C-alpha cells in the first residue's frame, strides 16, 4: 500500500433510503441518491471542486465560497457543498467566471497566511496549498497589513499543536468537535477579522474540555492543528490499515509510516466500527512501543529472589519446555496451565489454548475475560444461545430509547459513545442505570431522561423491578413472546417478577432508586419505540453478574427488543480482543465457538486435526488455578499478555498463588507486576509488529497488519510456536492466515472467515459461513440461535460483601478515558498528563464526617487489604459510595477488592467492596513492602561479555 491520502468527497452521504436522481456535471452524467450535494456528486463522477470549509466527515457549512459552481437555469453562483443535486440538473464546475471568483477568494486567504510552505510541517499535506494550486493562484495583490502572523502557538496538548497564525477560520475543527466527537470544546470567538478558534473559555487545549480525540486535527485543512509527531518526523510516505489494540470498539486506523517509523495513526474512514473517528488512546497513545522500559530479550532466573539473567531465545524456550515437562512428570499433567490474552490476536490466543490442550494434555486454560465479561458469555448463551452481543454499532442510529447500565461509554468506549451521543442529540431518549453520575447523564446537548442511581450490588433487584412494571402494567409484547420465546417459561418468569415484593416500591429501600423514577424508566423502555440496552462491567463484575445479564435478556425479550436494527442487548467489551479471546476457546470448558469439551463429536474433530487425545474434563479457571497453587498441586503457569497481579482481585491471594508455583512464564512487553513472581520472561511484540485479527464488541473480525518488524525478534504467535515445537509438537505455521484457516475449519461460526475474505470485505461479523457469507450484523433475526428465547427467573441474592460499622462505605471501581486497563501501555505514554494517579471519589458528606480534604491522602481499607491514594470530593458519587480507578500499580486498588465472585462464572466482584476511608499521611505497609519487592525483582544481572552465546 503506497501513501495516498484518503479521498475526501467533500460532503457526507445521504442517510437512509432516497430515490435516485440523475444530473450532468461538466458533461458527465451522474446518478446519486436525492439530497446528495453537488460537490459529492461531482467527486463521485471523478471530478473535484475546490473547497476549504467542506469535508465528507462533516455536514456542509458553506462559509469559504471556494466551491462555487454554475447551474443552468439558476442565477448566481451557488456553493456546491450546500446545494443538493436535483433531477436533470446541469452543472458546470470550471468556467472562466468561476476561476476568477475562486482566485479572488484564495487570494484573500493567502494574504493573511504565512508563506513558509517549504518549512511548514504540513508541506505536501495541506489543503490550502493544494487549493492555491488548484485555482491557479500565482500572485497576491494585497500588501502587508494586519495579519494573524504573530499569534502564539499553543503546544500544551502532548500530541498536537495549535498554531493560530495558520488558521483560516473555516470552523471544520469546531464542527468536528461538535458533530463527530460531541464534546463541544471549541468555538469561533470574535467577529470578522478578529474571529478565532477558542478552546473552552479561551483556554489552552490541555486545560480546556478537549478530550484529545484528534477529530479536529484530522478535519483541519491547514497546519494549524498538526500532530507533534508530524512536526518532528515529517509527513508520511506510506499507509497500512490496521486495528486499534486498546478497547473493544475496534477502531481501524491508517498507520502512516516513514520507512519503519510510525508517523501517526489516522482513523480510517472505511472502518465499519469507527467510520473515521478515534479516541486519544488509539489515535495518539502508541508511543509505548518504543518506551525505554520495553524488554527486548528473554530472561530467566531460578528463583524470584534472584536477579534476571538475559539469555538467548533458544535457551529461554528450551528452559521453559524443560520446566513444564519436569513439573508435569513430578506433579501430574494437571499441575500446569496457561492464560490467554484479550490483547493478543485471535490467532495467538487460539495457539496458546491449542498449546495447553494439545501440548500439555489439559484444559487448564483461561483468559482475562474471566475477570470482565465471562457472565456475558454465560448469560447470553443461556437465554439467546450465543455468547455475544446482538447488534452492530451502526444499529444505535435506529434506537429510540438507549439504556446504559453499568457502563461509562464516554470513558471506556469513547468512539461508540460519540455515535451514541449523536443519536441522543437527534432525539433518542436515554436511561442511565449507574451508581455514579457518569458524564452521559448530563453533557453538552445530552441529558438522560432518567438516571437510576442504584446502590452497588442491586442490579438484579432494579431490573426485576423494571420487569415487574412491564408485566403488571401490561406493557409486555405478548405477540413477540408467543412467537419467539418459550411461553411456559415466560409465564413462570412473569409470575415471579409480578410478585408485590419485587415492585419498585418494595425494593426502593434496598436499591435506593426512587420508585417513581424506576417506573417511568420501565415504561419508557417498554413503550418508547426501538429500545437498545448497552452494558458494561458494572453489570458483570458482581456476585450476580450472570443473573444481571440474564435479567437484561429477559427485559429485551419481554418487550420484543431483539432481532432487528435499533434494539438488542449489547455488552460493551473492555479490551480490544476480549470477544475474540472468548470465541477462540480460551475458557477451560470450551473449544473455539463455545462448544463444551465433553462433546465427543466436537472433541473428536479437534483430536483428528491435532493428532492428540484431548481431555473431556473442564479445566481450572484462573481463581481455581490460584487456589490449587496455594494447595500445592498447581505448579506452572504460562501467561500471555496479562497482568493478573494487578488486574485480578485480592492481590494478596494472587501473590500467594503465584509465589507457590515453580515456573511462572510471563510473555509481555514490559516487566509487569506479575513478572515480579515470574521465572521466565519472554518479550512480546506490539500490535504494530505482527499480523493477525481482533474481534470487537460487535463480533467484527478485523485485520491487524504488521507495519514494522518486531523489535523483540518474533511476533507472539511465532514465540508460542517455538515453545510448542520445543515440547515436541510439530507446528508449521508460516503465517497467521494459516492459523485462521485452521480456526475456520474447526469452528462453524468462523467457517467463512479467511484473510482473503477479510481483505475483500474489510471486516466480517461472525457467524460468517455458508448460511451468512457476508457475516451477521444483527443476530436472532427470525429466531433465536438456541431456538426459542429462554426466560430465566433471576432471584435477587444480595452479595455477601456487606457494609457494617468497620467498613461502612461501598467501593466501586472503573476506568477513565486516557488510561487503559492496568495502564501498562498508557502509563508509558503522554496520556499520563490527564491521569497521573488513581484518585478516590468521595461524597462531600462522607468526606466531611471523616475529615477528608479534597486532594488529601486517604487510607482505603477493606477486609482484604489496605492502600492509600488521594481523594477527590465530589457529588458524582452518592453518599455511602466511593469510587476509584485501577490504572496505577502504586495504588493497587485490587489490594482492597475481595475474592467474592459471580456465582456462575467466578467473575470477580470488583464493583462492590465494603471499605472504610480515613485521612492518612503515607503509604500503607503493603505499598512500602510491595515497592521494595518490585524494585528487587526487576534487577537484571550485569551482562557478562560472551555469556549470552
Amino acid at each position, binding site marked *: 500500500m503506497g501513501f495516498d491520502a484518503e479521498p475526501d468527497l467533500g460532503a457526507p452521504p445521504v442517510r437512509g433510503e432516497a430515490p435516485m436522481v440523475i444530473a450532468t456535471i461538466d458533461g458527465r452524467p451522474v446518478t446519486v441518491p436525492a439530497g446528495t450535494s453537488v460537490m459529492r456528486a461531482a467527486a463521485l463522477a471523478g471530478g473535484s471542486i475546490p473547497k476549504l470549509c467542506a469535508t465528507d466527515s462533516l455536514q456542509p457549512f458553506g462559509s469559504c465560497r471556494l466551491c462555487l459552481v454554475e447551474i443552468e437555469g439558476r442565477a448566481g453562483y451557488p456553493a456546491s457543498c450546500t446545494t443538493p443535486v436535483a433531477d436533470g440538473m446541469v452543472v458546470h464546475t470550471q468556467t472562466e467566471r468561476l476561476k476568477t471568483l475562486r482566485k479572488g477568494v484564495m487570494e484573500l486567504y493567502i494574504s493573511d497566511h504565512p508563506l513558509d510552505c517549504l518549512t511548514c510541517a504540513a508541506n505536501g499535506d495541506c489543503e490550502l496549498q493544494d487549493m492555491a494550486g488548484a485555482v491557479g493562484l500565482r500572485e497576491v495583490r494585497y500588501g502587508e497589513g494586519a495579519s494573524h502572523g504573530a499569534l502564539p502557538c499553543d503546544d500544551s496538548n502532548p500530541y498536537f499543536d495549535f498554531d493560530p497564525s495558520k488558521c483560516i477560520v473555516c470552523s471544520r475543527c469546531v464542527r468536528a468537535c461538535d458533530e463527530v466527537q460531541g464534546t463541544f470544546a471549541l468555538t469561533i470567538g470574535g467577529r470578522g477579522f478578529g474571529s478565532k478558534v477558542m478552546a473552552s473559555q479561551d483556554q489552552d487545549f490541555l486545560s480546556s474540555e478537549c478530550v484529545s480525540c484528534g477529530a479536529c486535527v484530522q478535519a483541519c485543512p491547514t497546519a494549524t492543528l498538526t500532530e507533534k509527531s508530524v512536526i518532528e518526523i515529517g509527513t508520511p510516505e506510506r499507509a497500512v490499515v490496521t486495528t486499534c489494540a486498546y478497547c473493544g470498539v475496534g477502531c481501524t486506523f491508517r498507520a502512516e509510516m516513514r520507512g519503519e517509523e510510525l508517523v501517526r495513526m489516522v482513523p480510517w474512514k472505511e472502518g465499519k466500527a469507527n467510520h473515521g473517528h478515534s479516541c486519544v488512546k488509539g489515535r495518539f497513545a502508541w508511543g509505548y512501543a518504543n518506551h525505554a522500559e520495553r524488554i527486548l530479550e528473554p530472561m530467566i532466573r531460578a528463583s524470584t529472589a534472584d536477579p534476571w539473567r538475559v539469555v538467548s531465545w533458544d535457551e529461554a524456550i528450551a528452559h521453559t519446555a524443560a520446566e513444564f515437562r519436569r513439573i508435569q512428570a513430578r506433579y501430574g499433567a*494437571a499441575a500446569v496451565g496457561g492464560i490467554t490474552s484479550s490483547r493478543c490476536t485471535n490467532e495467538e490466543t487460539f495457539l496458546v489454548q491449542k498449546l495447553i490442550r494439545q501440548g500439555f494434555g489439559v*484444559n*487448564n486454560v483461561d483468559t482475562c475475560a474471566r475477570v470482565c465479561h465471562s457472565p456475558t458469555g454465560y448469560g447470553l448463551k443461556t437465554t439467546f444461545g450465543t455468547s455475544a452481543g446482538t447488534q452492530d454499532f451502526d444499529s444505535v442510529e435506529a434506537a429510540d430509547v438507549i439504556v446504559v447500565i453499568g457502563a461509562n461509554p464516554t470513558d471506556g468506549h469513547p468512539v461508540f459513545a460519540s455515535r451514541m451521543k449523536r443519536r441522543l442529540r437527534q432525539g433518542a431518549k436515554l436511561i442511565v442505570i449507574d451508581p455514579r453520575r457518569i458524564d452521559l447523564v448530563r453533557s453538552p446537548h445530552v441529558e438522560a431522561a432518567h438516571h437510576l442511581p442504584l446502590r452497588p450490588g442491586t442490579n438484579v433487584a432494579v431490573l426485576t423491578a423494571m420487569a415487574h412494571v412491564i408485566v403488571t402494567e401490561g406493557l409486555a409484547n405478548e405477540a413477540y413472546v408467543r412467537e419467539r420465546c418459550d411461553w411456559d417459561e415466560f409465564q413462570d418468569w412473569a409470575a*415471579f417478577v409480578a410478585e408485590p415484593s419485587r415492585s419498585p416500591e418494595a425494593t426502593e429501600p434496598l436499591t435506593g432508586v426512587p420508585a417513581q423514577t424506576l417506573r417511568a424508566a420501565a415504561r419508557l423502555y417498554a413503550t418508547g419505540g426501538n429500545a437498545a440496552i448497552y452494558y458494561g462491567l458494572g453489570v458483570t463484575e458482581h*456476585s*450476580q453478574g*450472570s*443473573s444481571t445479564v440474564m435479567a437484561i435478556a429477559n427485559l429485551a425479550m419481554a418487550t420484543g427488543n431483539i432481532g432487528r436494527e435499533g434494539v438488542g442487548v449489547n455488552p460493551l467489551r473492555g479490551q480490544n480482543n476480549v470477544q475474540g479471546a472468548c470465541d477462540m476457546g480460551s475458557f*477451560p*470448558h470450551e473449544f473455539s465457538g463455545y462448544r*463444551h469439551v*465433553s462433546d465427543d463429536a466436537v472433541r473428536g474433530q479437534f483430536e483428528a486435526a491435532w493428532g492428540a487425545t484431548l481431555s473431556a*474434563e*473442564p*479445566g*481450572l*479457571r484462573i481463581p*481455581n488455578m490460584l*487456589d*490449587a497453587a*496455594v*494447595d500445592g*498441586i498447581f505448579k506452572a503457569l504460562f501467561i500471555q499478555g496479562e497482568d493478573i497481579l494487578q488486574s485480578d482481585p485480592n492481590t*494478596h*491471594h494472587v501473590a500467594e498463588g503465584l509465589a507457590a508455583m515453580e515456573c511462572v512464564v510471563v510473555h509481555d512487553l514490559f516487566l509487569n507486576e506479575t513478572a515480579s513472581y515470574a521465572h521466565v520472561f519472554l518479550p512480546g511484540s506490539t500490535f504494530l509488529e505482527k499480523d493477525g485479527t481482533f474481534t470487537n464488541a460487535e463480533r467484527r473480525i478485523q485485520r491487524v497488519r504488521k507495519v514494522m518488524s518486531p523489535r523483540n525478534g518474533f511476533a507472539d504467535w511465532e514465540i508460542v510456536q517455538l515453545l510448542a515445537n520445543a515440547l515436541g509438537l510439530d507446528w508449521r505455521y508460516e503465517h497467521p492466515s494459516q492459523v485462521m484457516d485452521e480456526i475456520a475449519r474447526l469452528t462453524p461460526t468462523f467457517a467463512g472467515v479467511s484473510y482473503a475474505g477479510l481483505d475483500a470485505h474489510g471486516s466480517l461479523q461472525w457467524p460468517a459461513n455458508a448460511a451468512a457469507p457476508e457475516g451477521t450484523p444483527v443476530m436472532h433475526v427470525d429466531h433465536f440461535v438456541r431456538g426459542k428465547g429462554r426466560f430465566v*427467573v*433471576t*432471584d435477587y*441474592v444480595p452479595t455477601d460483601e456487606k457494609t457494617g460499622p468497620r467498613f461502612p462505605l461501598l467501593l466501586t471501581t472503573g476506568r477513565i478515558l486516557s488510561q487503559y486497563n492496568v495502564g501498562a501501555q498508557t502509563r508509558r505514554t503522554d496520556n499520563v498528563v490527564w491521569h497521573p494517579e488513581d484518585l478516590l471519589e468521595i461524597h462531600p458528606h462522607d468526606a466531611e464526617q471523616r475529615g477528608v480534604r479534597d486532594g488529601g491522602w486517604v487510607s482505603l481499607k477493606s477486609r482484604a487489604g489496605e492502600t492509600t491514594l488521594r481523594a477527590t470530593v465530589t457529588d458524582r458519587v452518592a453518599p455511602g459510595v466511593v469510587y476509584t480507578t485501577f490504572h496505577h500499580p502504586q495504588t493497587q486498588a485490587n489490594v482492597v477488592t475481595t*475474592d467474592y465472585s459471580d*456465582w*456462575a*462464572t*467466578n467473575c470477580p466482584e470488583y464493583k462492590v467492596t465494603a471499605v472504610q476511608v480515613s485521612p492518612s499521611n503515607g503509604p500503607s505497609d503493603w505499598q512500602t513492602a510491595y515497592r521494595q519487592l518490585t524494585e528487587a525483582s526487576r534487577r537484571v544481572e550485569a551482562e557478562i561479555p560472551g555469556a549470552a552465546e
Partner: protein
Amino acid sequence: MMSPAERLIYMANQIARNFEAQGPATAAQATADHIALFWDPRMRAHILEILAAGGDGLSPLAAEAVRLLHARQGAARAG
C-alpha cells in the same frame, strides 16, 4: 481468607442459592449440571469428599445437588 474446602462449599452454596427460585427439584438438578459443566475433576472430587465426610457447611440444596452428582458419576462408572 477461606480455606480451599471452605471456598468450594461457598461456591456450591452460592450456585444452589441462585437456582433456588426455580423450585427445589429443578434447582438441585441445575446446580449439579452446573458443577459438572464448569468444575474441574479435582474440584468435583473434593466436593464429593466433603459430602461423604458429612457435608458440613453445605446448604440442603447444595448437598442435594452434590448427592445427585455423586449418583450420576456412579451411574457413569457403572455404565
